[in-house]
């Protein structure tokens, strides 16, 4: 009896598997769907509709009503407005993109350089330095970067500082040092420079580059660690072989280290761009947020956000294109 049961069941299973076009391994792999299910639900029910809706909003005007909202189709009106009419958006967007484009290579080179410095063996204080370099990732995030916790020139800092420095009624050095001491070291520097009479052009150049330096140092924490992890996975045997062959350290850097960790350059580039979305020192975010939630102009806000999205995709694409030419996979 039992035997016939088995005989009956096996062909059925085989038939089922044949029908679905899978073998035993394939059956096991079907379990994968269960694991990724939460993400799939989120993607299909939350993310994908949202991004499609956002695109639809960007083509229309949105009217809020008590239990729902009304869409009035407008075509490309919002986009036209963003590019041709809005006096501020183009400026803010270009500034943000310029900042990303300038910061991206500098962050990559800086974190690469730092990772190489930190990778030396028998290097006392390595742990402490690593911890400090990583600190900004945790503490200069979210509102802490908005509120000008970073020493640079965030939006409100500039506003307050400009007011204090330009207000003729406040022509009081005490107040100015007060302002400087509270704002940041950059403002302090600005106070010193203004006393040197360097002229506004040179002054803004120096303060901007100093604040950018801090900005870059504070946003390379994760990138340094990713490079460091990659450096540690290079087998030492390769270096030993190279040494036997008579390569100098300089040659080893270009012929071994750089190719071996080149895949990480792309990862870090993407991470840097993604990280910039949540760093409010790039001004376009607060601008879009103001349009959408300050002026409650959802349609126009969506259009602005979409333009921003397309621009960042283009940046990532260009970086991927450039890096993938030189990338070397050690497979």
């Amino acid at each position: 009896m039992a035997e016939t049961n088995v005989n009956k069941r096996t062909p059925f299973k085989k038939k089922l598997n044949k029908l679905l076009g899978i073998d035993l391994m394939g059956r096991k792999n079907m379990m994968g769907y269960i694991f990724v299910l939460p993400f799939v639900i989120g993607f299909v029910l939350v993310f994908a509709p949202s991004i499609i809706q956002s695109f639809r909003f960007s083509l229309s005007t949105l009217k809020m009503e008590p239990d729902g909202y009304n869409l009035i189709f407008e075509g490309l009106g919002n986009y036209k407005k963003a590019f041709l009419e809005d006096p501020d958006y183009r400026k803010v967007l270009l500034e943000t993109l310029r900042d990303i484009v300038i910061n991206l290579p500098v962050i990559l080179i800086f974190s690469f350089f730092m990772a190489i410095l930190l990778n030396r063996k028998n290097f006392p204080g390595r742990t402490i330095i690593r911890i400090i370099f990583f600190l900004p990732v945790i503490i200069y995030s979210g509102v802490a970067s908005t509120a000008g916790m970073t020493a640079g020139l965030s939006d409100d800092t500039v506003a307050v500082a400009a007011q204090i420095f330009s207000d003729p009624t406040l022509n009081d050095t005490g107040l100015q040092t007060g302002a400087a001491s509270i704002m940041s070291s950059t403002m302090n520097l600005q106070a010193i420079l203004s006393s040197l009479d360097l002229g506004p052009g040179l002054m803004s150049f120096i303060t901007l580059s100093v604040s950018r330096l801090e900005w870059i140092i504070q946003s390379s924490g994760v990138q340094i660690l990713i490079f460091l992890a990659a450096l540690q996975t290079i087998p030492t045997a390769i270096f030993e072989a190279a040494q036997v062959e008579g390569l100098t350290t300089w040659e080893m850097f270009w012929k071994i280290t750089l190719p071996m960790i080149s895949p990480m350059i792309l990862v870090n580039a993407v991470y840097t761009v993604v990280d910039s979305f949540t760093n409010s020192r790039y001004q376009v975010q607060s601008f879009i947020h103001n349009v959408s939630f300050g002026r409650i102009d959802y349609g126009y806000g969506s259009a602005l956000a979409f333009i921003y999205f397309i621009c960042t995709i283009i940046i990532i694409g260009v970086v991927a294109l450039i890096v993938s030419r030189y990338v070397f996979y050690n497979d």
Partner: protein
Amino acid sequence: MEKYREKQNIEFEQFSRGKRLKAKYLNWHFAAKVFGTLFIYVLLIGIAFVIVYPIIRRVSNAFKPAEEFFDSSVILFPRNPTQETIWRAYGGLNVNGLGAKSFWLAVFVALGQTAVATVAAYGFARFKFRGSKLLFACVIFTLVVPPETIVIPLLLRFRYFNPFGLMSLILGKPLDLTDTLWPQIILALTGMGWKNGLYIYMMREYFKGMPIALEEAAYIDGAKTMRAFFEIILPSAVPMMMTIFLFSFSWQWTDDFYAGTFLLTERVMATNIATLVESGSGGSVEIISYNTQQTATLLLILPLIVLFIFTQRFFVEGIERSGITGT
């Protein structure tokens, strides 16, 4: 070998102590080494200073009485330290009223994100089902879309919350979830929360680096996929899950983007900070209110700093452990 060493020592001992020291330290190689090390330390300490200085500055400002801001001889150490600013910032943050709420929000969101990231990442790392590459591309896609792009539809979705028309069936009208913590928890549980794609990516790299022999042994012993996952994989993934949890907690703790969007009249501590500046008041009042805001920010991140000091191992080693390979 021993004999050889002895001979060497004897030969070396033939020179006087002074000559030996001279030979050892007075050469270009040693000088280059010393200056190289010195240079690297100066560089590293300088950069570390740039990172730490704003915090030191703000700690000192927190204790400064208002009039000392106008005294250019006081820089880091206040002459008459006061706690006034700190208490004003403490009240402004509304720690007593909102502390618990902010804390639980961050904890629940972090738990949800960790769970979803772990499960999804395991699915991506170990199973080759149809469309897995495409789905993983979707994970990366959720990462590269700026949150601004999807936040308006998200807000409207939660303002008129009506999954499959269920809510209008039960309540007669869509549910309004704004001003509650549910939108953020729902986002976390569906893997769409703050930077969730990054967590899935890190977790996947970690699972890919884990030896597959662990599970194969479990399968041979007769365990089913689920049992192998819960009894073999999860326990060995705890350190990495801890890393994800800590990242998620700290980023949620300071996040004012989603919190500020979904909480229209309610607040958490992070969104309270923006309200502390009375801009346009000008002069010293502005400086004081600005200082209060800065001190409030400092108070907000203080728990994170303490947490970080005790758990830095998870943060720093987590990324190294994940061994992100870029493929």
